[in-house]
């Protein structure tokens, strides 16, 4: 039910990692979701895709991996270093 707030937090983590001007060049966001994390993976993916399709992002993909446990974390970001500066 709170997947959108988690998706926003994932976007905040991405911004803290690379800085706002680089967010438009993020191509992929890796997210690990535990099956006991209280998260519906499809719902989180939907929310994230909605956020990543609009500025300051520019269509980054979501790469979600599922595993047992209650972990929920951003695992990696892929950034296109040749992309146009924002």
């Amino acid at each position, binding site marked *: 039910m*709170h997947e959108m707030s988690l998706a926003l937090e994932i976007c905040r*983590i991405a911004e803290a990692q690379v800085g706002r001007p680089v967010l438009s060049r993020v191509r992929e966001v890796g997210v690990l979701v535990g099956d006991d994390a209280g998260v519906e993976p499809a719902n989180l993916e939907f929310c994230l895709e909605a956020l990543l399709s609009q500025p300051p992002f520019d269509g980054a993909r979501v790469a979600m991996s599922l595993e047992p446990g209650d972990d929920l974390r951003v695992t*990696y970001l892929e*950034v296109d270093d040749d992309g146009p500066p924002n």
Partner: protein
Amino acid sequence: MTVRRIEVRERVMAKNDEIAVDVRQRLATHGVPALNLVSSPGSGKTLLLERTLQDLGDELRMAVVTGDVQTENDADRLARWTDRLVHAVVTGGACHLDARQVATALEALDLDDTDLLFVENVGNLVCPASWDLGETAKVVLFSVTEGEDKPLKYPKMFRMARYAVLNKVDLLPHVPFDLDRAVACAREVNPELEFFFTSALTGEGTAAWYDFLWSCVHTPVRS
């Protein structure tokens, strides 16, 4: 296209949990135990708090952070019994309280003038289980008008809780509720769960609940 991969490994709840650690530290500094009341809507959180504030208010300085979603009805009811009340800002539709809201609410309370803090969470047996608010313990309520298998349907909440209140026991003669089965279901997911059996309406069983609250104030409860 040169794609660079940045390893992150950051927990999505990290920021919330960081704030929760601060909240827990602040409460500990002032010696204030905090109980996070969680349940589905309608289990009787507000009525149990009303009765508790009414019955113990002369002896215990109790503060409440409440998280109404759409109205201020709960806050209005509780305000009759305590002036140590903070209405956490919950925008319409929110499904839980987070640590930042509790941290903000604490700013409005004089913790040196408080013996015990209640957080009345949003009525929801799913989402609040995932959010550490810096509380001493979660107390999960359910009632005899719900199914005995609630703990099996919402195992995470019953696992995260240290205490359970089975409320509305005054209705037991009128509803087909198997109390032993309910306790068994809860203990199946959390064998350590400690139970209270209450009617917030009639006051039945609240003596044990009050003894527990006193014990929280005198000695820290296990989290």
